[in-house]
């Protein structure tokens, strides 16, 4: 077995290999059931919490999504798939899904490309690598609310730093948070800045996993520069890239806090209304518990699809 953490590059679900089967010969029935008792005693706190706050609500949300309920009337009213058909006709719901996809497509690929470039630079023989890594990583670790406040200020129409910099290049001021056209890009730029460091750290780990001998062999064969990247680094790094891609997509689908702080209410003309924000509005703004649950379940299925893709590929990943 490798380093304890190392085999965890992705939490691979490989049950068969990792849980040794019970050696049948030596086990006595009595001992097995005594162990079972103790094991469940150890698991009790975990199972109790997950039972009440994960297993029960995941089913409860599904059942709620077939009811209409405002939390005031005593009994929820059964509406069948009514909430789902209503969702299909709700322009705001479609808009929120569209905005969410816009956010995912706008932020994820750019973040990955920039992060890979930075990781490659950091992976070359340079000094102060730790210091650089620290600088790139700091945005990721800080409180989303606090740092988004700072960006609200950076985006300020008249006194924000961004419009000042644009002004230096004689570019007209952009009304970042007031203009429906610019609200989503504003969130995307913030998001790229904030998540870059996370991707850099994972890419660096992936790069350091590539054996130096592979490069030497390629150099002997006359490969250099771009060819080394194209034929060695990129293919050997592809499991890492894929992992980052899926994890970022799943995370991006859930964007909420940045928008809540940067564009309260979902931005001008709902231009930054995203799926989770929509669920929040319907549930805790309008108290439509059933309708909000249906919207949450649609989001769940979208995220679930991506998770399945990740698991499928993770299983067939190259091991090295």
């Amino acid at each position, binding site marked *: 077995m490798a380093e304890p953490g190392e085999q965890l590059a992705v939490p691979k679900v490989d049950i068969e290999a990792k849980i040794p089967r019970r050696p049948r010969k030596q086990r006595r029935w009595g001992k097995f059931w005594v162990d079972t008792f103790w094991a469940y005693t150890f698991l009790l706190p975990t199972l109790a919490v997950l039972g009440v706050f994960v297993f029960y609500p995941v089913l409860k949300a599904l059942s709620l999504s077939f009811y209409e309920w405002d939390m005031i009337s005593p009994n929820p009213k059964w509406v069948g798939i009514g909430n789902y058909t209503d969702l299909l006709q709700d322009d705001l719901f479609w808009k929120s899904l569209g905005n969410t996809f816009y956010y995912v497509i706008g932020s994820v690929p750019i973040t990955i490309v920039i992060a890979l470039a930075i990781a490659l630079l950091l992976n070359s023989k340079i000094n102060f690598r730790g210091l*650089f890594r620290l600088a790139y990583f*700091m*945005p990721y670790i800080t409180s989303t609310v606090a740092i988004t406040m700072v960006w609200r200020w950076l985006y300020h129409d008249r006194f924000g730093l961004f419009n000042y910099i644009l002004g230096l290049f004689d570019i007209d001021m952009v009304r970042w948070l007031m203009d429906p056209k610019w609200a989503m890009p504003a969130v995307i730029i913030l998001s790229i800045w904030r998540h870059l460091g996370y991707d850099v750290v*994972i890419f660096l780990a992936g790069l350091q996993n590539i054996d130096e001998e592979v490069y030497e062999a390629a150099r002997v064969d006359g490969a250099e520069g771009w060819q080394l990247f194209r034929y060695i680094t990129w293919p050997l790094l592809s499991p890492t890239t894929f992992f980052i891609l899926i994890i970022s997509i799943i995370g991006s689908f859930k964007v909420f806090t940045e928008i809540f702080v940067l564009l309260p209410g979902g931005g001008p003309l709902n231009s930054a209304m995203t799926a989770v924000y929509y669920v929040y509005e319907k549930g805790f703004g309008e108290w439509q518990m059933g309708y909000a649950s249906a919207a949450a379940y649609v989001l769940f299925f979208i995220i679930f699809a991506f998770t399945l893709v990740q698991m499928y590929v993770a299983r067939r990943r190259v091991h090295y």
Partner: protein
Amino acid sequence: MKNPGVKRSIIYALLIAGAIAMLMPFFWMVTTALKTPPEATTMPPVWIPEVLQWSNFVEAWNTAPFARYFLNSFFISITCTVLEVITAILAAYAFAKMQFFGKNVLFVILLGTMMIPGEVLLIPNFLTLSKLGWINTYKALIIPWIASVFAIFLVRQFFMTIPEELWEAARIDGCSRLRYLFQIMVPLAKPAIVTIALFKFIGSWNAFLWVLIMTNTSAMRTVPVGLSFFVSDVGTDYHLLMAASTFAMLPVLIIFLAAQKQFIQGIARVGIKG
């Protein structure tokens, strides 16, 4: 690019430019926090304030109940972290070292829960907590968060590398299971436990949506939620807003700087998405 010196200079130039872009918002935050209101709202911007207005921090601190927010945040984050570490150690031990009825099925089910986005659970959990009368209490902010499948998985992986002979030897010496777990296994699994504790603390400190929904008075708010309400207290006084943002992010930054190595290794190993 044949000249290695030129190449290195370009690499440094790119990295430094990038680092400046990354750190610039932090710089902008701190300088704004130290400006007078007229200095904060001038174009072209004042980069370094004439006289550093340290009193802005005091004023921001006193404008909203930040002492209470910090107390809440510390209490909730520390309690969550300690309890999660304990539940994770117990569960991980059962999965790593014990044979019991339904083990494999249970483990797969637990791993399956990692695929459920927490946002789906918000509404039913809100209803449950309302029914329990826990809304706006510490219980609502702590209890649902003290079990993490991810933490269990990580500690279990570590426990599995510890040879079984150690337990056999300890048992012969008359050591009980619990004592063996906490006195021998836990110290051996310290790297994994430090990793989950760090991530839990920072995760709890930064948690937002849950706290926003489950609390309704300022006495129960944590620092991030309190800060988001601070906007309505100070409106457009950006020097105060930046002062508050600065001290709001300080505790996590300090912990991160102190435990940077464990942190970055933890992310590199398992790719934890906060």
